[in-house]
């Protein structure tokens, strides 16, 4: 489900790199000037905590807070805490046992292989596409940007179906590949393709704004000083986009680990063969093996929290 969430995370990201952005922590000269000028409304602008309670603003402040926290508690903290509690209710041993069963270990391994391939391919694609979009002028640039964005808006199930239609055993392409001994659908290559598809724009959208902001003066300077283009890329461009790239890679990794719909369709959900961690959770849950399902869910949730914290660290100036 992480799909387009990232589109706006990118929006946010682009904003944070925007020089005009007023971060709430940095004192904005305009507002500061205003608050000394006017005692009434402007004075408390930056420092709401000193504002005496009461009045419509004071009430709305508490209402906002109660609604926000109530929502978070009932729909997020409580459900996730319940899973964690069910997982560890009988201590650590069942948790470890559930996650070290042969099926679970295999699912971990499949997930890891698929995610690493997908991340690697998307990173190469992402950096390449971002360089072209920012450092090279050609007609139809905006259109190309839209083409890169589209995959996040396509339903994962449709992604799976589309891959089956193209690479399935009974299609011309799939048949040909199979005669060469290469099975795509119901096997790892298909799952990698599906994951690459759904996570395609994430790296591009993280790198583009930073590459734009960076400008190319330093690259030109390096070039003038005799660096080859590849050296320039390695020594100037890559360090400049490092944290944005890492941010994109983490987003991409999170998406790859958690993907369900597209992978469920193309993998055929074969236990101990093409079962990823998310598919493992679903299959265990349907078979009333709740301890295993909850344990794997907890593991996935922990991974999600770690990636979220990582993106927080990597996102520039947030």
């Amino acid at each position, binding site marked *: *489900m*992480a799909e*387009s*969430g990232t*589109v*706006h*995370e990118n929006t*946010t990201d682009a*904003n944070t790199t925007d020089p005009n952005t007023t*971060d709430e922590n940095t004192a904005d000269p305009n507002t500061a000037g205003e608050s000394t000028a*006017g005692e*009434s*409304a*402007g004075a408390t*602008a930056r420092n709401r*905590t000193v504002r005496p309670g009461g009045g*419509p603003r004071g009430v709305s*402040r508490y209402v*906002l807070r109660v609604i*926000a926290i109530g*929502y*978070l508690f*009932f*729909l*997020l903290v409580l459900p*996730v805490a*319940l899973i964690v509690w*069910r997982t560890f209710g009988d201590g650590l041993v069942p948790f470890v046992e559930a996650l070290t069963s042969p099926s679970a270990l295999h699912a971990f391994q499949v997930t890891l292989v698929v995610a690493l391939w997908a991340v690697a*391919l998307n990173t190469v*694609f992402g950096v*390449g596409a971002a*360089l*072209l979009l920012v450092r*090279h002028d050609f007609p139809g640039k*905006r259109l*190309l940007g*839209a083409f*890169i*964005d*589209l995959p996040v*808006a*396509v*339903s994962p*199930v*449709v992604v799976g*179906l*589309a891959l089956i239609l*193209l690479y399935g055993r009974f299609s011309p392409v799939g048949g040909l590949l199979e005669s060469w001994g290469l099975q795509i659908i119901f096997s790892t290559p298909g799952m990698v393709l599906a994951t690459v*598809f759904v996570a395609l724009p994430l790296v591009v959208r993280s790198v583009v704004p930073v590459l734009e902001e960076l400008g190319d003066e330093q690259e030109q300077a390096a070039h003038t000083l005799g660096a080859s*283009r590849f050296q320039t890329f390695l020594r100037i461009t890559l360090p400049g986009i490092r944290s944005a790239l890492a941010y994109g890679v983490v987003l991409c990794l999170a998406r790859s680990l*958690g993907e*369900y719909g597209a992978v*469920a*369709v193309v993998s055929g959900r074969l236990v101990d063969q093409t079962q990823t961690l*998310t598919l493992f959770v679903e299959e265990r849950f349907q078979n009333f093996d709740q301890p295993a*399902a909850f344990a794997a*869910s907890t593991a996935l949730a922990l991974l*999600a929290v770690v990636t*979220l914290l990582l*993106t927080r660290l990597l996102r520039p100036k947030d």
Partner: protein
Amino acid sequence: MNLSRTARAALWTALVLGLGVVYVPLGVVVLNSFNSDRTFGWPPPGFTLQWWGAAWRSTGVRDALWTSVQAGLGATAIALVLGTMAAFAVQRYRFFGRDTVSLLIVLPIALPGIVTGIALSNTFHSVLGVPLGLFTVIVGHATFCVVTVYNNVLARLRRTGLNMEEASADLGADTFTTFRLVTFPMMRSALLAGGLLAFALSFDEIIVTTFTAGAGVRTLPIWIFENLFRPNQAPVVNVVAAALVIVSVVPIYLAQRLSGGDPQTR
């Protein structure tokens, strides 16, 4: 950096390969929806609109479409209200645990759908005692739709600052008037972009839906999933998928337009 000729060729190759992974299969889906051969023989022996007609007449598809629209609209409405409120609370006020709250709000987008699904279904079942149905689907979708609205509104709030609202207050407008005449118009395109993405997310979602939908509640992605491997339904499934591909162009197009009209959204 001036790209050398070989570098440019390599980059274009990577780009074309990457986009090929996406667009060749999607193209096949759209083309096959007009393929007159039931089993998608290739090259198509002829083109027909027959399957589109059949899909339109199918009650299963229509019901699923209606359910998806209801779920999408419901989840988007909740997301717009809660996401905006949460963004205001986090951006405009300082309170104990604000960083934790802001982290928790965006958590659902990082959380794998299956975890959200199982967690919510469990909570509805064993704690809140709410029977699963369309309502629970809407609430489930809202958890991650809120994030899209929240992110967009938060970004806008960060950029606009308080100056305009202060000016409005200084000129004698009360809080509500200021919100109606100053704050809301500034937020409008951010709300539109966030709402659009929220609707698209809800419309495409499958796994949270599977776990929060009661018996008989079937959204469009679930309908496709259920009919995917039924050979006699293949042409209709294909049409629905093609329709979904075409429809998903809309939010991307509008987002581009929005960002084009207002350079600040990008």
